């Protein structure tokens, strides 16, 4: 089951290209899932200036999405707005890695 989580504002997207659309796979309220959710929100607020969208998928409720996206590890972040498929596993605690993955450095 897809669950749209916090939806950031899309306004201002025209100033710095397209907005980032994220799909974050979590395993319920597991500690690292919770951390990932928090880290992602902070990251978006800090670097993406509200031009982002986050869709949260709980694999415990929606295993089919996990299967379709080949998410074996959680938490997992998939960036669906970019041309290249980007997957980031983990709590997203390493901000530099996330930035370089999103080519924002």
């Amino acid at each position, binding site marked *: 089951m897809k669950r749209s989580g916090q939806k950031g504002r899309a306004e201002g997207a025209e100033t710095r290209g397209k907005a980032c659309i994220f799909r974050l796979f979590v395993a319920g309220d597991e500690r690292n899932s919770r951390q990932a959710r928090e880290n992602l929100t902070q990251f978006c607020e800090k670097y993406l200036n509200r031009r982002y969208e986050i869709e949260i998928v709980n694999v415990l409720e929606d*295993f089919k999405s996990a299967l379709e996206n*080949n998410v*074996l*590890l*959680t938490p*997992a972040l998939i960036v669906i707005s970019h041309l290249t*498929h980007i997957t980031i*596993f*983990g709590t*997203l605690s390493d901000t530099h890695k996330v930035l370089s993955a999103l080519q924002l450095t």
Partner: protein
Amino acid sequence: MAMRGHKEEKEVYRRKAKGLPKVATRIAGLDEVLNGGLPAGQTTLISGGPGTGKSVLGLEFLYRGAAAGEAGIFVTFEERAPGVRQNALTLGWDMAPLEKAGKLFLMEAHVDPQAVLSGDFNLKGLIAIINGKAAAMRADRIVIDALDVLLRLFDDPARERNELYVLHDWLIDHGMTTVLTVKTSKNGESSGRYEFLDFMANCVISLDQPVTEQIATRRLRVLKYRGSGFGRNEYPFCITDEGINIIPLSFAELQHKALGPRVSSGHPRLDALLDGGYRRGSCTLMSGTTGTGKTSVASTFVRSACERGEKVLYINFEESQEAMVSSMLSPGIDLRPALQAGRLRLLTAMPEAMGVEEHLSRAFKVIKAFQPEHVIVDAISSCERMGTRMTAFGYLTRVVNACKERGITLILINQTSGFREENEISGIGISSMVDTIIFLRYIEIGGEINRMLLVMKSRGSKHSNQYREFLVTDHGFEIPEVYVGEGGVLTGAARQEQEAREEAQHRRRFQEIEQKEREVIQTRAALQAQTATLKAELEAAEAQLQTLRLNEKLWQNGRKKRGEMRGQISDTARLPTPPPQRKRRGARRPGGAR
């Protein structure tokens, strides 16, 4: 080889195992080794180097289960799903219908190598997928192939271990019968990194593929099985076009059928030597050096069996089908009608071409499908080329057992390497399994080589104990009449010499009689000839006598006439008259006849 009593055996094992529930793998031979199957609801670890057959074993377990209605999940970290399906097809398994029916699920658990790792993560995604799928399919068996690929992502042995335990616990809690496959280093020992898996799993199976004398043999060994007995040997196995085939030798119980009635060898005189022919379901070893006629004797049997409408499988390690058929034409044994009628099937392969297990499974497959009454193996001596002497022994033991269980008449041809090597007679040490031994050899007598045939041993029957001369002619083989003269069995020139000697003696006696007869005839002829001469002389003498008498008469008449003309005077009395005795005829023998 999966025996026919597979299911019953499984039940027996279940009962024996006292409460340890097992899940049959349905893989040929594996359940025998595992005393019934894998531990139900527990974890089994299959470890082995690359290419040792781990994935195939796991997949076959699921495929066979799915085909029997037991749903299962195959998670692969290395291969793509289409590749797995394709490989399965080459093993004769069509996964697609089972996947459609929801009995089999192929999960391509591919981790994007481009994926970025940032911070802590765990296997909850995988578990969630397994959980969802297992519930939907009502699956209770899972194979996780090449788990080590996923674990490497953690890049930390402690994390790997933790995650694996979480996964393991989840699987056990959910009653999943689990098979994990893990690659090991080449020497077959699991690397230290995954040693904990051995402790975690209830059953550990190790696969390897050592190469000895250039022939690779796959082997399977059960390293541990908590709470259960298991076959502790190293079991060679092969991956055939029907999947894995393990033939646990030590489990091949002796369930041989009793020897059946006689079946003709195809040659009346050999039948006589064998007390009526081969016994059905018996094993005959035909041993001899090259060219002694072993294949001819076997082919004669093949031809006659096929003519009776029986089926024969000829396993030939020496020649191709064409070569064999044409080489048998020269001794006048035409196998083509039997082949055309589909009663004779030739299974040819170079012994080196594949491992012993593959040879075995090929043979067993044909035996199963073709259901022959008789099987010939030509030549068992070549089996050593599959590997070692031990390999050959294993091959033959299993072939003999399989044939005896099915009541198939088996003829093993053994080529001995040298002249007079009696110790080779037994043929790779299998003589105890053999019921009849026919020994063909060359013997040298008087500077000449001749073929000899001997029935050495024949279980449960009288048989000739004589060496018999054996000829291969252009119309099959011949066993001439037993030589009944003085002395022992003689062959070839020696036999001919002896026969000639006797012939000469006989002729001499005959000639003496003839000579006497001729003498008598000649004597009689001489007698007759002499008689004829004497008769002729007598006749000549008589003729002379008559002439003389006639002359005398003429002289007398002339004198009388002259006297009458001179006037018949009184002086007539003065003339002598012829003596009276001279007038008697035949009274005296003529003197000049001698």
